[in-house]
């Protein structure tokens, strides 16, 4: 039956769009880093290099080939797990990244576990008691967190927890991670900071999604059936808001990508983002490209996931 096919068709379409986007993004990343700068060979050899040496290196690096064929070669390499060699320390990019990726994923994972339940509870609560003191406090807090840069949230967290209260170390790594409590302390600052940033978005979007469903005629109908406030929100509004909420969660988690760059730098946390920021300062192009692709892939998968949840949760499309 065509009706049952529709949602899956849409999902597949969305996946196709995501793949296409990925190709365009990789194209952009490759050409932004590869074509715009003066000349990679000159950069590598420094200003004192002779023209012959530069030409020789260009030849050796295959820079004389047409840009498009280099792009395809690079893309094929990426797919095969060959990320190239770092210009700066001549190490395989795969090696450089593999040690760091786990750290970043751990940070993101812990942040997700901490922020999602808190954010959902606060967002739904604020919608349920809309206009109350609780709602207003949550609103002011979230808007404040959204309005300030991530590094300020981090700075404030350091001021409060490390400088004034002295509970936690300001830097996360280098500290010993042998015992559980020490490890908790090491992770605490980055996770707290990231959670604030991510939750603020999530709370606002969740609240908006629930309020939108509360304002529908069927929730008014529930009121006129004698339903309590709890039943109206949890029983009638929430099931219809699930799609938008899941969407909000996925979208908010994509803010992790931006947040993690700042947070890893500020806390000197050895993740991919820190690696990339360092690579930018040394203009280590293969490393920058690979890190950028990692971030783009994770960002895109979260956004696509959000889209697909939105499609599948539409009751009219669900069977």
């Amino acid at each position, binding site marked *: 039956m065509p009706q049952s096919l529709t949602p899956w068709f849409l999902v597949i379409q969305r996946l196709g769009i995501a793949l296409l986007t990925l190709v365009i993004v990789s194209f952009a990343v490759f050409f932004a880093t590869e074509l715009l700068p003066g000349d990679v060979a000159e950069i590598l050899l420094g200003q004192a290099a002779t023209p012959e040496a530069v030409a020789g290196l260009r030849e050796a690096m295959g820079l004389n080939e047409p840009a498009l064929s280099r792009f395809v070669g690079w893309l094929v390499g990426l797919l095969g797990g060959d990320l190239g060699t770092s210009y700066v320390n001549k190490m395989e990019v795969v090696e450089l990244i593999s040690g760091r990726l786990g750290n970043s994923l751990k940070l993101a994972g812990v942040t997700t576990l901490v922020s999602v339940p808190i954010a959902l509870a606060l967002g739904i609560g604020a919608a349920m008691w809309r206009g109350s003191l609780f709602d207003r406090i949550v609103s002011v807090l979230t808007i404040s967190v959204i309005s300030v840069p991530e590094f300020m949230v981090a700075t404030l967290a350091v001021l409060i927890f490390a400088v004034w209260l002295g509970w936690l170390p300001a830097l996360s790594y280098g500290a010993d991670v042998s015992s559980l409590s020490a490890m908790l302390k090491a992770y605490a600052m980055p996770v707290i900071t990231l959670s604030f940033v991510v939750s603020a978005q999530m709370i606002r979007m969740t609240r908006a999604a629930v309020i939108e469903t509360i304002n529908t*005629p*069927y929730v008014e*109908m529930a009121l006129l*059936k004698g*339903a*309590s406030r709890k039943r109206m929100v949890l029983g009638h509004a929430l*099931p219809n808001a699930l799609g938008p909420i899941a969407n909000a969660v996925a979208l908010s988690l994509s803010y992790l990508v931006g947040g993690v760059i700042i947070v890893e730098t500020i806390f000197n946390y050895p993740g991919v983002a820190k690696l990339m920021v360092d690579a930018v300062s040394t203009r280590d192009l293969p490393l920058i490209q690979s890190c950028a692709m990692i971030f783009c892939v994770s960002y895109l998968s979260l956004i696509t996931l959000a889209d697909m949840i939105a499609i599948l949760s539409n009751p009219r499309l669900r069977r």
Partner: protein
Amino acid sequence: MTNPLVSVRDLRIGATTDAGRKVEIIKGVSFDIEPGEIVALIGESGSGKTTIALSLMGHTRTGCRIDGGNIRLGTSEITAMSERARASVRGTEVSYVPQSAAAAFNPSKRIMEQVIEIAAIHELMPRAEAEKKAVELFRALALPDAEHIGQRYPHQVSGGQLQRLSAAMALIGDPKLVIFDEPTTALDVTTQIEVLRAFKSVMQKGGMAGVYVSHDLAVVAQIADRIIVLRGGEIQEVGSAEQILRAPQHPYTKQLLAAFEPVPHQPVDQPVQAAKPTPVLEVFDLCAGYGPMRDGVPLAKILKNVNFKLERGRNLGVIGESGSGKSTLARAIAGILPAYRGAVMVDGKELKPDLQNRSKDDLQRMQMVFQLADTALNPAHSIGSILARPLTFYEGLRGKAREARVIELLDMVHLPAALRHRLPGELSGGQKQRVNLARALAASPELILCDEITSALDTVVAAAILELLKELQRELGLSYMFISHDLSTVEAICDDVLVMYKGEVVEALPAARMSSEATHPYSRLLISSVPQLDTGWLSGLEQDPELVAQFANR
């Protein structure tokens, strides 16, 4: 005499507008409802009828509050109750049937779940018993497949069925009072009959009292024992249904009744022009549709081979229910939706199907007026500039001459000249529709396509617009193509009528003798389904069940 079931005394409800201004919307209303009696609240938009009905459940919409007076239901004083106590009354003592069941059913839950929810909230009976009772109600409401319809989701049943299901939802807790809030307004006439019948029979069997909110006197006449006429938050007249229809006392009630039965149309006498008999509009084998084109044919074909002819100075009505393609016909003729086959001829000249290829002159001759004046006028432009644009565009008028013409146009539609400085948002519905009409007149057209232009208006205002159309026709020698789902409107203004069903013209009839000359079964069904101002109409109505099964979208 027994105590009334409901008594409302000096009810006052206030509202805060968006601008923060406080207004009184219900100004001291008092009435009683006897047990088992059905009382209709009738009035136009803004009369406060829905607000009063909802207040009987202790509920007011956002921004409104009960400021004074009291409402007693049985032994309980609704106005003095806490919100929690009111919740305990809702569904058990008094329940609600909404205007749009499609919006009032939660799309993500099964129908049965929602129908028996009242029993679950108030812990009236075990689940199995509630489901059994629901199925009985489904049967009593003449729903098909009563055993299993509850297992479906709301979007899987038709509008008319959903409306009856919402009545089952209201009746499950055996309330003493049921509030019907315009429950058939959104339905087609052929569907409306079935729903009205179902409501009437369950209410009679259950011996429940009801409040029936509506703007339609003919519908109310079929179901109500007593009618309360409201206007501007005040009661104008109260009386038995029979008395209100036969011997209205209040001038406003008389006006409402008069608007309901418009003056029949007198064809305009045409100066004899034997030399030029070309019809103003002629349509041959017109086909149009939506969606992607395949081999020059769109995926969703709406119009199928429509043919007709409209003589100069005459008016053609197009009637049909939702989905009949009547609006698509107007759009295809106007070129907004290019027809993929067939021809449109204006004044004997064939027009190109799409707008881009029609000349300014072609476009000027034929103007279209839309149903919703709200969306047809750009809210960012003043009335003056809305009317001025076609003058500049077609005739190159500017400055003083244009201003004078704008004032003249406003005068033609009986609006004061000062209105040209206002924005559309500051006008009433009727005024907006007049401006809408004036804009069409600005092009000095020969033919105006009117797409449901009175449907969104209150009866009295709509009647005035119809009068205006007739007057303009006499003065300017216009021809109208008038699209409507309302037969009496078409009767009031048209010479000939096309009956449309599923994109086809099933019959062409003279407007004045529609009911007597209709031969096609669908036209007969449609014409007989229009409620009459007669309390006995519904009970006396006999329709061939086979015909109904064949044509009505139930």
